[in-house]
């Protein structure tokens, strides 16, 4: 799966979260994703970018276009922070559970909106969430 396109968006402010959404929308449009697919990917990106900002204390998003062996196109988004990390992953991946004031749908909701979902985190080690949505 060679990456054919890669770009990075800082996530240091709420405006950056908006910029991340817009960047993902533009890329998904360029790659010919349907409106529903675009909307799902952009919404997942918004949830994860907000997590990076609020829970991770800021970080960045990386966008990559993937091409599968069968020629299928996908978009991979990674959200990386150097924040406190997640101590209890099972709890964090529970619908409706939130360590902050949110609805607790950020991680679980974005997992449902993506084709693939991976999370790497440990206390003090930061968090990296990667999602892929195939066209």
């Amino acid at each position, binding site marked *: 799966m060679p990456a054919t396109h890669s770009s990075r968006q800082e996530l240091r402010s709420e405006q950056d979260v908006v910029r991340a959404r817009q960047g993902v929308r533009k890329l998904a449009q360029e790659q010919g994703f349907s409106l529903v697919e675009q*909307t799902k990917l*952009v919404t997942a990106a918004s949830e994860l970018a907000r997590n990076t900002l609020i829970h991770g204390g800021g970080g960045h998003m990386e966008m990559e276009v993937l091409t599968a062996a069968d020629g299928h196109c996908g978009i991979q988004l990674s959200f990386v922070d150097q924040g406190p990390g997640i101590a209890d992953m099972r709890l964090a991946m529970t619908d409706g559970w939130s360590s902050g004031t949110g609805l607790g*749908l950020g991680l679980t909701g974005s997992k449902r909106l993506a084709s693939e979902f991976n999370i790497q985190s440990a206390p003090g080690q930061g968090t990296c969430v990667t999602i892929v949505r195939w066209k």
Partner: protein
Amino acid sequence: MERIPILRIGEFLLVTIQVDMHDQMALALQEDLTERIDKTGAKGVLLDISALDMVDSFIGRMISNISSVSRILSASTVVVGMQPAVAITLVELGLNLPGVLTALDAERGMALLRKNIGAGVDDAGDAQ
């Protein structure tokens, strides 16, 4: 900070969200609208989100809060114009917006608000 305008039309307030809101803007709208309902005694709020190409859990919560707070202040809120792709995504995200009144477009939303106000008067009559 840029704020979302709130227009008054008779006993209704009209809000059309036409920008990609960051979180503080959504919170400010919630506060501004609550204040305006209180000040004007508005009986209904029409919240037009037809220009929103995405509703995430934060904006979803704002919509839900506006609806609940207005109800407590004896005003109805009707959310109109949600794009189908946004509706599909919201449900998959896990947000069903319970208790939030919706209509397909502004005209139907206005009709629903008028009907609700009428029903509200009847309810009060029944209670006495």
